[in-house]
């Protein structure tokens, strides 16, 4: 069976190549095979059981800077950095002793070294050549520099998009924040005036003045807290993942949500579950999603409440499967059946001034966290969005 080339195989059997050279009948096949190898975009290298290079196609020459003549006979280690060289020797030995393949059939991403010492990322897939003893191997080197760069760029783009959308949200929330800051400022100013007047009375009550001074200090701290929270929401560099408590994330947002809810004439409540697992997430990004969902809810209920008090509710809980759920619920009109499939699509919006990106960005952020973001009708009425995340691994400190 080794003397014919079977189409559909990823690479020619070595025996075939050898036979091809010897047999005048298969002479054409050999040239065909050589043409196939040389036309390939990926580097194709055949090595023996000691790692010695036996065949080196044209793409390999172009990718690696060695000519075929220079490469053949050398150890495959010349294309690797030192650690990988040692590992590779080990893989070869182990395969020869007990046929345990390391990457055969699966492939992996590796760093490949060129003749000039520069390196590039590549996907390496390896096959063992059937019927050979000692075994030989063929490796395909696929340069992934471009796709890596594109991946990095798209990550960067996603981070920037999240950041921009967060800034936009902060901008939209600015009036709510201004209101929120005005409260402690107004209280401080009024307390101070009151102290001044109390001290001007014929028999001033010093204790009363002193307790008012303490209240002024409390309000200054409150104002500082609001500013700190606003800044943490506007920070840009927070795409790093770490184990965080969803309840902490929600509590950090509570003041902002409250002020925004107030501006919409809506009451806000939260029911935070106890003993929840942490999730491994970028806190700022998850907060961004929650803020998006809350803003949608506020706009939905604010516009239409038929006599009943408009309310937005955040509930956190652990699901039976271990995932942690943040659900944002409102008692507004809900999402019409016809729109439920589309609301997560970019540019789908029901708001006059909406971009239609809020839910699309939210879902992409959640997807990047291997989580899910789904809609379901709330009971008894309104909308409910469920954000579900895997628990962080238990062994994290």
């Amino acid at each position, binding site marked *: 069976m080794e003397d014919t080339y079977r189409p559909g195989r990823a690479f020619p059997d070595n025996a075939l190549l050898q036979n091809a050279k010897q047999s005048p009948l298969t002479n054409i096949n050999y040239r065909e095979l050589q043409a196939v190898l040389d036309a390939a975009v990926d580097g194709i290298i055949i090595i023996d059981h000691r790692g010695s290079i036996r065949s080196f196609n044209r793409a390999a020459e172009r990718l690696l800077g060695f000519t075929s003549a220079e490469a053949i006979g050398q150890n495959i280690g010349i294309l690797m950095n030192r650690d990988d060289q040692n590992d590779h020797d080990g893989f070869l030995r182990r395969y020869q002793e007990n046929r345990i393949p390391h990457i055969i059939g699966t492939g992996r991403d590796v760093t490949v070294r060129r003749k000039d010492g520069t390196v590039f990322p590549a996907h390496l897939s390896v096959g063992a050549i059937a019927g050979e003893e000692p075994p030989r191997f063929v490796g395909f080197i696929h340069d992934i520099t471009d796709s890596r760069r594109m991946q990095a760029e798209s990550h960067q783009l996603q981070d920037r998009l999240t950041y921009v959308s967060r800034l936009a949200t902060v901008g939209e929330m600015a*009036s709510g924040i*201004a*209101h*929120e800051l*005005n*409260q*402690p*400022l*107004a*209280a*401080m*100013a*009024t*307390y101070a*005036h*009151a102290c*001044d*007047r*109390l001290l001007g*009375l014929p028999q001033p009550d010093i204790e*009363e003045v002193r307790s*008012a001074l303490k*209240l002024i200090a*409390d*309000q200054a701290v*409150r104002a500082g807290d609001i500013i700190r929270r606003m800044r943490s929401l506007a920070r840009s560099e927070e795409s790093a993942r770490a184990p965080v408590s969803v309840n902490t994330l929600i509590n950090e947002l509570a003041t902002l949500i409250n002020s925004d*809810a*107030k*501006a919409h*004439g*809506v*009451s*806000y409540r939260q029911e935070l579950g106890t003993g929840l697992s942490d999730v491994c997430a970028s806190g700022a990004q998850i907060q961004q999603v929650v803020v998006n969902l809350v803003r949608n809810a506020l706009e939905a209920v604010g516009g239409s409440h038929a006599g009943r*008090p408009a309310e937005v509710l955040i509930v956190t809980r652990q699901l039976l499967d271990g995932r942690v759920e943040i659900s944002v619920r409102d008692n507004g009109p809900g999402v019409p059946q016809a729109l439920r499939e589309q609301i997560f699509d970019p540019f789908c919006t029901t708001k006059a001034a909406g971009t239609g990106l809020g839910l699309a960005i939210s879902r992409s952020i959640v997807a990047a966290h291997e989580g899910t973001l789904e809609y379901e009708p709330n009971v008894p009425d309104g909308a409910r969005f469920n954000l579900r995340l895997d628990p962080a691994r238990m062994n994290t400190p």
Partner: protein
Amino acid sequence: MKERPPLVFIVDDDDAVRNSIRLLMKSLGHATQTLPSAKAFLTTYDPEQPGCLILDVRMPGMSGLELQQELNIRGAVIPVIFITGHGDVPMAVEAMQQGAFDFLQKPFRDQDLIERVQRALTKDQSNRAELGERAKVRERFESLTPREREVLALVTSGKANKVMAADLDVSQRTVEIHRSRVMEKMHATSLAQLVRMMLDLEESKQS
């Protein structure tokens, strides 16, 4: 009836703002009552209680503007001073159109609030005095007999006794008796005063 001392009502959902205004009012010797929501105010509100209302515009549940509307529906006369954290012009306009006494933006100068509270209390007092006067006039008017009311209507429209006697088909002497009874019952000392009373009564019926 003994006059009740005026009360400054402070309705704001923010504990610190509410309490600080209470303390400022206290330093001026005003009696206060603080309430955390519009609903709480409505449930305890006694329209007979003189005073003024310092009201936050934006509150969860019933907003300040909604409370003002409700008070208008109930015919309450208490002057309302709105305070807001927002420089929200349309909202201020709406509040003023609905008869708000004044509108202050937080944080405010104490002098501004103090002055407005003082003026609001004065206004409330004169409102109530006017109302009391009007109620008395109405009471007196209602004590008139149908015939006396007819005479009153003719007198205030400027008819002479002789003309009235012809219109009502009674003697001039009878008209004179009715007329003096009307003046007496209405506590009017002149025709001019009687006309003013009737105009005022008419006006209050229309509004």
